[in-house]
């Protein structure tokens, strides 16, 4: 969507469009934000809470036709307060409140007013929290506001101001793990801060004419889930309080003549993560407590009418989340590399860790056989990298096309695709990459990486989804099958038996190296036993057993 915007002033219509774009982009990335959520409670709902809050705010003006920017901003802030969910949602509502306070009586705003409004937004957000913690959405909001303020001193182009604000917000977001230990341990950036960045980014994208509105393909493609992360990281997120995380209680107090400051103090003595915001007639309460009866009882006794009461058991949420959370660190924060950067596709936390930590990939996009990343996903990864030259490793034959499309669509960067068809080919290509990056040209590097894949054979072990006879092999539905370089090569009852069979037909004793990447359904001891057994059967090659953590494939095997 392209909107004619005078770049110097913004009226209510335009603010509404900007706002819709921010919401759409946040909505698109909601799941990513959820998966980052480790603070204050790792219950994986920050993205959802912020989206719900934004939706409520937008609903308040969606059918408005008013060009008075002050009225639009005020209505949105009121809507956000009514709809605020969770810590991040409440803070977001206060950001909108602070923003609206400055615009109150204005028909339009310019860069300088925008800057003041951003500052007020950030200050209001800080006031919403009893003890502000840095390394959170607050830090990102403050950095963004300060940047807006600085640049607006000499720049009247609102688009430029917004872009600088966004860039600074992203920068502040990247640094959140340095400020908040739990983020560093989990290897993620702050989820609320990320949510705010997506809102600003959505606005900037609309101004730049990039897609933000939710068309079907974008919506259909949620961020993959289902991987598990390793236990050591999970342990760090266990509640410090031996009673667990307790309950998340939220409600609106309606009435008149509330003393907001007094009410806030009273709630703060009752629990933790307390947020109390509003005015004498309407107060939004968000609090974490062990006994939900306390805050609710207090509100009733204070003469309030309760509305929109939500009580959630955070301990249960945490446990559910812990069971299925995706460790997102590697996906979301690209690793800075010199020279050419590599964007690879892989599923499984072990595999992603391997590619980033050991093999120098800058970004690993989650995906594979059942979840093919789109060209858009590649483009996003490419654009998030500071490098001018990028190589894509699709690591699956069904993803090569999307990678090639992305390479064509990338603007301002030179992108090559090394058409790896399997993850082991991708690993071989990355080995060539770490040895040659920085000493040869992009095309030579891509050439060396492609050449290195020729000496690798891949066995993929999975379960047959239907009965099939192909390439002289018969497999019944539900049986274990092995694909050798994409062709059906064996079937049987146990993954280990099938692996032995296929390696025997390959005359694996002649190989130099066999690498066994075991999946999320295989225990380490089981994989080690298979490794030992293969060592006895095939005395020639070195055998390396690595945790890939990939779903659906008990084993991925490379033979070199």
């Amino acid at each position, binding site marked *: 969507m392209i909107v004619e915007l005078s770049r110097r002033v913004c009226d209510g219509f335009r603010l509404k469009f900007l706002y819709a774009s921010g919401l759409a982009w946040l909505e698109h990335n909601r799941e990513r934000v959820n998966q980052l959520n480790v603070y204050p409670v790792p219950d994986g709902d920050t993205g959802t809470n912020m989206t719900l809050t934004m939706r409520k705010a937008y609903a308040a003006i969606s059918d408005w036709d008013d060009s008075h920017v002050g009225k639009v901003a005020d209505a949105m802030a009121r809507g956000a307060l009514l709809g605020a969910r969770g810590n991040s949602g409440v803070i977001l509502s206060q950001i909108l409140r602070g923003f609206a306070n400055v615009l109150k009586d204005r028909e339009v705003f310019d860069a300088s007013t925008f800057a003041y409004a951003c500052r007020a937004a950030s200050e209001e957000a800080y006031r919403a929290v009893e003890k502000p913690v840095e390394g959170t959405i607050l830090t990102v909001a403050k950095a963004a506001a300060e940047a807006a303020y600085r640049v607006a001193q000499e720049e009247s182009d609102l688009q430029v101001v917004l872009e600088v604000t966004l860039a600074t917000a992203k920068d502040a977001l990247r640094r959140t793990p340095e400020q908040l230990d739990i983020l560093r341990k989990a290897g993620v950036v702050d989820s609320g801060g990320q949510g705010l960045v997506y809102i600003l980014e959505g606005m900037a994208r609309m101004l730049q004419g990039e897609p933000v509105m939710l068309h079907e393909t974008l919506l259909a493609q949620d961020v993959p889930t289902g991987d598990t992360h390793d236990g050591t990281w999970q342990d760090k997120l266990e509640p410090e309080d031996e009673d667990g995380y307790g309950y998340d209680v939220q409600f609106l107090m309606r009435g008149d003549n509330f003393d907001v400051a007094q009410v806030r103090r009273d709630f703060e003595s009752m629990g933790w993560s307390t947020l109390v915001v509003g005015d004498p007639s309407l107060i939004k309460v968000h609090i974490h407590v062990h006994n939900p009866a306390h805050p609710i009882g207090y509100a009733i006794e204070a003469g309030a009418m309760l509305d929109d009461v939500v009580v959630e058991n955070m301990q249960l949420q945490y446990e559910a989340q812990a069971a299925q959370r995706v460790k997102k660190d590697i996906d979301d924060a690209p690793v800075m590399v010199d020279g050419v950067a590599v964007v690879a596709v892989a599923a499984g936390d*072990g595999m992603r*860790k*391997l590619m980033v*930590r*050991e*093999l120098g990939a800058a970004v690993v996009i989650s995906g594979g056989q059942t979840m093919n990343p789109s060209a858009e996903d590649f483009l996003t990864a490419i654009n998030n990298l500071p490098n001018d030259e990028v190589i894509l490793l699709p690591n699956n034959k069904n993803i090569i096309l999307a990678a090639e499309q992305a390479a064509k669509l990338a603007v301002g960067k030179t992108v090559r695709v090394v058409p790896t068809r399997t993850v082991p080919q991708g*690993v071989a290509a990355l*080995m060539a990459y*770490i*040895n040659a990056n920085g000493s040869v040209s992009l095309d030579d590097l891509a050439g060396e990486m492609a050449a290195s894949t020729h000496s690798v054979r891949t066995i993929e072990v999975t379960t047959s989804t239907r009965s099939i006879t192909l390439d002289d092999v018969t497999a019944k539905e539900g049986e274990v099958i092995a694909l050798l370089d994409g062709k059906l090569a064996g079937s049987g009852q146990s993954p280990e038996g099938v692996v032995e069979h296929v390696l025997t037909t390959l005359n694996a004793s002649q190989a*130099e*190296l066999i*690498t066994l990447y075991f999946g999320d359904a295989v225990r380490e001891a089981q994989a080690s036993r298979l490794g030992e057994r293969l060592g006895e059967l095939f005395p020639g090659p*070195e055998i*390396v057993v*690595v*945790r890939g953590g990939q779903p659906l494939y008990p084993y991925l095997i490379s033979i*070199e």
Partner: protein
Amino acid sequence: MTFLKIKFVTDSVADLPQELVDKHDIGVVPTFVNYGGQSFADDGKELNRETFYDDLPSLPTHPTTAAPPPALAEEALQRAAESADHVIAIVTPAKLSTTYNSFRIGGSGLPSNRYTLIDSGQVSLGMGWQVIVGAEVAAQTGSVEATLDAIQRVQHNQALYCALLTMEFLRRGGRVSWAAAGIGALLQIKPILQVTNGDVLPAARVRTFSKAVDHMIELIRQQAPLDKLAIIHSNNLEGAQHVKDTIADILPVDTHIVRVGPTLGVHIGPGSLGFASVSTSWKA
């Protein structure tokens, strides 16, 4: 110009074979390996260099290594100075060890016009070859200036690479930051290290040791024609012999197979294979 008598002192990290030490009357100050609550001088006597590698993987705590104290350096330098007009000490790089500092302090009693201290920027025979060429040129020319010039030209025409069987020991040793980060552990990557200007760098990373050795042989060939070659190993004589046989066509007269001493051995672990070469171009 008067013909000066010049003597050389180095430290045991140079891995100089005894025959060369004797031939050129070189002073060797031992470095130390500490483990099991004891400190052993790496002088070929206190530590059995062969059995040390057999024991290394199973030692309950990983050994640490230490530079010689200044007093030991002083003693060796003084002894050399008694029968020489000038003493040149070539030692382990300051970036890797405080040996250089011990030699600086230990030599402070000698008049500065009679003592030259050189940071070799190298280890093992990479450092050793600088000493040997220096001793040869000194014996021929009797000139400190010509000798120092020759040493500098060797430094610019030498190479040292080593293929490690595992990154584990380099990581445990903690002196090489990129190795300490644990990179390469998951895939059991075999690194080929290069030592240059006192830096230990990853020259290449490959998946199998035999590929690493092939790659290293290629690197030796790139250095030809050779004036001097040491094939160095940490208890991998068979591998060293294989390398030697493979490059029979380019072997210089001065070729040695040398077991790396325990001080370096602590950091590279058993089974590793490498080489220290000087190309003939140093003479040009």
